[in-house]
């Protein structure tokens, strides 16, 4: 009860993207693209690391975004930011890209839970 987290519900939340050109174009064809009155988009075709950092921080603080898709190789560039993020919404999903296949070892969610499979955690549970 003390740790109850309030989920921000929404009936028209956006899917944001930080990915390479082909991935962004593909998902834009599927209709996820949004441009607001200030010409701010919900997607970024990756360019510089500084821009990726700023965009990630922006997308994770916007209230109208429910899911952020980020190519895993892009997430690796800002791994410290991605791993330190722990809110339920927006959900950060690391996706493969054309030139970089998905690697479960780098996924931030799997990294968070993998210690359960380590010998130390098993040994400490048995003591």
């Amino acid at each position, binding site marked *: *009860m003390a*740790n*109850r*987290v*309030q*989920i*921000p*519900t*929404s*009936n*028209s*939340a*956006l*899917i944001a993207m930080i990915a390479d*050109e*082909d*991935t*962004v*174009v*593909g*998902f*834009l*064809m*599927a*209709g*996820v*693209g*949004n*441009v*607001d*009155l200030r*010409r701010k*988009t*919900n997607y970024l*075709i990756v360019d510089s690391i500084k821009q990726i950092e700023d965009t990630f921080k922006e997308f994770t603080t916007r209230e109208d975004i*429910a*899911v952020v*898709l980020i190519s895993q190789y892009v997430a690796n560039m800002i791994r410290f930011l991605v791993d330190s993020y722990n809110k*339920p*919404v927006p*959900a950060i*999903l690391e*996706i*493969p890209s*054309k030139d970089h*296949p*998905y690697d*479960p070892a780098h996924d931030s*969610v*799997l990294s*968070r*839970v993998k210690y*359960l499979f380590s010998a130390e*955690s098993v040994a*400490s*549970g048995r*003591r």
Partner: protein
Amino acid sequence: MEVVDHETPSLENGKTDKEVEENANVLQFMDSMDAYLTLIHSLSSTLRRGWLELASARHSMGASRVNTVLLDHTSHPAATSLLVTQDERKVDSGKPHFTLCKWASSSNENSLFGEKQSSQDKLHPQLRHRGSTELYEEKTSSENKASREVDDPVQKERSKSLSMFGTLVSPKLRAAQLSFEAALETLVEIANMRSEMLCAFDQVNMKLAGRKDEK
């Protein structure tokens, strides 16, 4: 080797309620993790198909016609969005549930139309008993018409989404669009499985922490 706790009451098979619950949490965590990895694998193959179809479309239409320069930068809402709700099964868990609303701007209008029709039927049930056979034929033809009406706006939205690449587009581009739509559906399942996995992980972690405190 299993250690039986003599302080807590035990069931016939030697496991306490607490141990059964812990095992259930661990199983749920393992299942959700397995499902998460399976869905990621499925997503990878769907995306690969989409990228290949997009590359084929770019090859047939020309690189200048399938380009990010042509993206629509004028103000417009997303046609595909998400419905985010609290997971109804566990209100206190803080677990979100995501539902994809594809081409929602067109399909929402049609679903509202359908709902309004059904509510009118409920208000005037007596009218529906006259000429039941004719009514049945009218109803099936109206249902068919409604499903066509739902599909047409969706097709219109799809065509509108591709219109930034020109009026006549390669069939490969349309195929790529469908592949990325399928990838979106998988991504929403991944998002739900992710939140389920993290919730189960928190449960297991809490039990482990509790066990360490007891010792």
